[in-house]
């Protein structure tokens, strides 16, 4: 049965949300302008209008999730982003796999933030909510799906499949509902993809809050007062955005097989840049609160951070990146709307800032080199340059599009070696930043002159030198660039820890946010240096083959070919590939795929053999995502099994193609990261020519490359899946095939009925052989076997050791914790001022 109610309902709530956003913006602007008598009623009306908007926005999300959750594949969104086999928590990922869902998520977070602001602010409610409602109107317009003449506004997630595609089936039967959806991109079937997008979008959404306070401040001519309420939110935004970025990096590390956590892909750069600017903005805002300088810089940075988030959205979702990114985002025809959204707020912000510019208070005196203002300013500028260096090359595709839209030709492409290109700048900027944090913190907490500075830096400096030397010697860091990195990282940690200890002795923990975040930065630097700079491919140059064209031999082969069961030496390990495995519901470890046969139903299989205590032959078992194959690879040292890793691959027909995910062995001081880059394709084997063997019982012979023994034959009374009649003769031959340490019993069967011969061959896909019992020669006491050979099962593996990657992850946690402490402190300040009636 076709359901059209949910779609219509969702579409209706979208319209309500859009209209109510515009009404709210209007109402709050009236509330703001109204005289004392009318204020109360305008306020009530504005709030009601915003509540309606909040409710309808939430209902958009509910409607879309209902469609996915109840598997309504008559809707395009459910059909193309979900499938029956998906467990519920991945249905949540389906929700935001599509761009429409992502916009809904974004709008939803804005609503949540808006509700908090309405209830925590007095004076600021009206101006801030005007900005909020306008942003909401733009966001909701992205999913409106309204056509006015030739103009399409927004792309609705509630359209029916038959309206979205021109499939011929709908001409025959307009009420056709597909049985199943095409599924969720396997890369997104990961727990981090359930929580990374909401975090990132909360980060996106929250950049609006400081921006809204700023615009409110500029309109109400409270040029400086907006900073206090905006500051805790700016820190909150930086923390959440930072957390979102790190989650994305961690997701990439555990799910994608590009071999790391950060690839300087345009999509990553686009969120990294606003984060840097936001961090710079926080620092100048704090300086302004302390000493009334850097107001202009703060204003520029807050505007930039908000606009850059919109620019990131534009880059990622307009299709402009096209050939430049490995992430494929489809163009939903929203680029015009996104550009309008960006230009509108940029225009408004620049206009208001320019109008206020001459009225802004500036400090006349020059900041001394021994003042914190000076160092903070240098730090903010460094962050700005860092961002500039990343956003400029990332924008090359947008530049090309711009030139082409004016009829020109531009064939510029992003740097060929992205990682090398960005690293050579960002590395030194990061070193400069780390040093600034350590020196800056000393200025921050005490009035200082030349002498006291020297005195307070000497101890941390000496301690860092000693520590760094120890680390450099112990971990054999012999590259001068990395030595500098270690030294800076350690110095950052030690200097900021010194400050932290002093602070804790003197006052409360509330003030510790800054030094904690900076300690985190130092750890991140060291973690990145080791895990990236000293990451070592241990599956290097293992083939031992030489080619006729010698230059190929000189190229590093970073992968190793592992035939099944064949031990291969890889650095300190002997590795053996042990075949494909499946995940079965209720069984903690993996089950060999060869003992399971599909029943044709989704995620269901029948057992071909008994398996431990878990199931018996003939039992029906439930699989966890049947498309997933896990490749079991044993790691041995001194002939003893140390551990097994099971990198995964998923073949998903609906999505088209194979996708593989890594598996890592995690030690305290390093990760062994492995993934399967290529594998055998069983689906359509090209059998080689027949080989015939005549053997007698007990005889040893060679089948393909294997040693095999013919252990004799037996006459069968019954055969699985075959009814024997009176007078039938069935004979089963027993052949043992040896493959390294594995022994396999293959039993082809031979049946005679009414002088007709039937053969039941056996196929072993792991060994890539098919054996049939062709004939029995009683006079010679020999059996005739026909053998066809395909290819043994194999995987092509890449293995990388990443030292001290845990330092990086711990560092990010410390940094995020520092942010949290700072948010608490700044929000506390704001609340105290507000309750005094000052704001």
């Amino acid at each position, binding site marked *: 049965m076709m359901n059209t109610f949910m779609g219509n309902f969702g579409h209706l709530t979208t319209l309500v949300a859009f209209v109510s956003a515009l009404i709210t913006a209007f109402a709050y602007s009236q509330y703001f302008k109204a005289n004392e008598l009318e204020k109360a009623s305008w306020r009530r009306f504005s709030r009601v209008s915003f509540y309606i908007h909040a409710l309808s926005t939430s209902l958009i999300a509910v409607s879309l999730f209902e469609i996915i959750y109840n598997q309504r594949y008559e809707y395009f969104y459910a*059909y*193309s982003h979900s499938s029956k086999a998906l467990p519920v928590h991945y249905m949540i990922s389906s929700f935001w796999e599509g761009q429409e869902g992502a916009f809904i998520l974004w709008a939803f977070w804005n609503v949540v933030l808006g509700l908090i602001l309405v209830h925590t602010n007095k004076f600021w409610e009206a101006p801030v909510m005007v900005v909020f409602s306008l942003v909401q109107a733009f966001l909701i317009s992205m999913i409106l799906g309204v056509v006015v003449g030739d103009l399409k506004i927004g792309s609705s997630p509630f359209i029916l*499949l038959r309206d979205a*595609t*021109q*499939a011929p*089936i*709908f001409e025959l039967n307009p009420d056709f509902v*597909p*049985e*199943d959806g*095409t599924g969720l991109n396997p890369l997104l079937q990961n727990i981090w993809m359930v929580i990374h997008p909401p975090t990132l979008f909360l980060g996106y959404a929250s950049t609006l809050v400081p921006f809204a306070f700023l615009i409110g401040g500029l309109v109400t001519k409270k040029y400086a007062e907006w900073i206090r309420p905006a500051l805790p939110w700016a820190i909150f935004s930086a923390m959440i955005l930072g957390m979102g970025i790190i989650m994305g990096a961690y997701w990439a590390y555990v799910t994608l097989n590009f071999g790391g956590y950060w690839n300087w892909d345009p999509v990553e750069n686009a969120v990294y840049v606003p984060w840097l600017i936001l961090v710079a903005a926080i620092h100048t805002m704090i300086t302004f609160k302390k000493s009334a300088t850097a107001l202009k810089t703060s204003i520029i940075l807050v505007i930039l951070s908000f606009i850059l988030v919109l620019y990131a959205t534009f880059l990622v979702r307009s299709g402009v990146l096209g*050939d430049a*990114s*490995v992430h*494929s985002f*489809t163009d939903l025809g929203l680029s015009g709307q996104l550009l309008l959204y960006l230009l509108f707020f940029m225009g408004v912000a620049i206009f208001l800032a320019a109008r206020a510019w001459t009225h802004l208070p500036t400090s006349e005196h*020059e*900041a001394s*080199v021994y003042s914190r203002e000076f160092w903070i*300013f*240098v730090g903010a*500028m460094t962050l*700005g*340059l860092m961002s*500039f*260096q990343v956003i*400029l*090359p990332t924008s090359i595709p947008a530049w090309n599009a711009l030139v082409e839209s004016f009829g020109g030709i531009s*064939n*510029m*492409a*992003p*740097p*060929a*070696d992205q990682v090398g*290109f960005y690293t050579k*700048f960002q590395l030194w900027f990061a070193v400069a930043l780390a040093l600034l944090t350590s020196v800056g913190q000393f200025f921050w907490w005490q009035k200082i002159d030349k002498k006291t500075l020297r005195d307070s830096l000497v101890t941390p400096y000496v301690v860092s030198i000693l520590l760094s030397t120890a680390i450099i010697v112990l971990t054999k860091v012999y590259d001068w660039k990395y030595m500098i990195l270690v030294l800076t990282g350690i110095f950052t940690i030690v200097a900021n820890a010194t400050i932290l200890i002093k602070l804790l002795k003197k006052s409360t923990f509330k003030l510790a946010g800054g030094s904690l975040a900076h300690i985190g930065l130092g750890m991140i630097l060291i973690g990145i240096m080791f895990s990236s700079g000293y990451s070592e491919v241990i599956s290097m140059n293992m*083939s031992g*083959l030489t*080619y006729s064209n010698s*230059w*190929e031999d000189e*190229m*590093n*082969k*970073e*992968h*190793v*070919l592992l035939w099944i069961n064949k031990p291969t030496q890889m650095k300190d390990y002997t590795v053996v590939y042990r075949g494909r495995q499946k995940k079965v519901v209720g069984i903690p470890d993996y089950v060999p795929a060869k003992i399971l046969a599909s029943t044709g139903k989704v995620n269901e299989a029948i057992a071909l053999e008994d398996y431990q205590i878990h199931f018996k032959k003939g039992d029906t078992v439930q699989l966890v995502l049947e498309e997933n194959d896990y490749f079991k690879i044993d790691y041995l040292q001194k002939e003893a099994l140390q551990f097994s890793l099971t990198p995964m*691959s998923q073949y998903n027909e*609906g*999505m*088209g*193609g*194979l*996708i593989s995910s890594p598996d890592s062995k995690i030690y305290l001081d390093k990760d062994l990261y492995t993934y399967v*880059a*290529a594998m055998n394709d069983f689906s359509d084997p090209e059998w080689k020519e027949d080989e015939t063997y005549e053997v007698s019982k007990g005889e040893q012979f060679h089948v393909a490359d294997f040693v095999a023994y013919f252990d004799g034959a037996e006459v069968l009374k019954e055969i699985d899946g075959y009814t024997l009649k009176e007078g039938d003769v069935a004979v089963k031959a027993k052949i043992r095939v040896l493959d390294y340490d594995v022994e396999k019993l293959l039993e082809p069967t031979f049946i005679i009925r009414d002088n007709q011969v039937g053969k039941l061959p056996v196929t072993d896909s792991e060994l890539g052989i098919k054996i049939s019992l062709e004939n029995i020669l009683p006079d010679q006491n020999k059996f005739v076997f026909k053998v066809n050979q395909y290819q043994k099962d194999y995987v*092509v593996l890449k293995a990388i050791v990443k030292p001290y990657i845990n330092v990086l992850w711990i560092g990010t946690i410390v940094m995020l914790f520092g942010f949290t402490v700072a948010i608490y402190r700044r929000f506390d300040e704001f609340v105290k001022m507000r309750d005094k009636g000052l704001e």
Partner: protein
Amino acid sequence: MKKGHLIGLGIIAVAIVIILSSIGDASSYESFNTALEMKQDGEDKAIHVVGKLKKDPSGEVSGIEVREDKTSFTFLLVDNEGTEQKVFYNQPVPADFHRSEQVVVIGSYRDQELFVADKILMKCPSKYQETDVQAAGM
């Protein structure tokens, strides 16, 4: 000179370095013909070439030769001008390679005959363009 001016000059100087290096390190989109000319002019910079895999008359991808250890391979790429070129890639065949609608190779000519790709970007058929609902849905 005031400190503010010094900082300003410093920032401008770094910004100029960044702009110059971005332009200098930027790659470019080329055809195989122009890429070969660049090679003959002694330019070894890695460039981007956009193309499609060579297909035989029945529509099957042809010309992929995998090395014996399966860790590298060569294939035939036809660029947008229709030039066919043998390309070497020092990695196993990527999983969706045969299905890709468009392939971007980033690399340079090794000699007159062979283009060596350091990196490959693939555009796979987007599911948004799926018109074959019947086959996929039943």
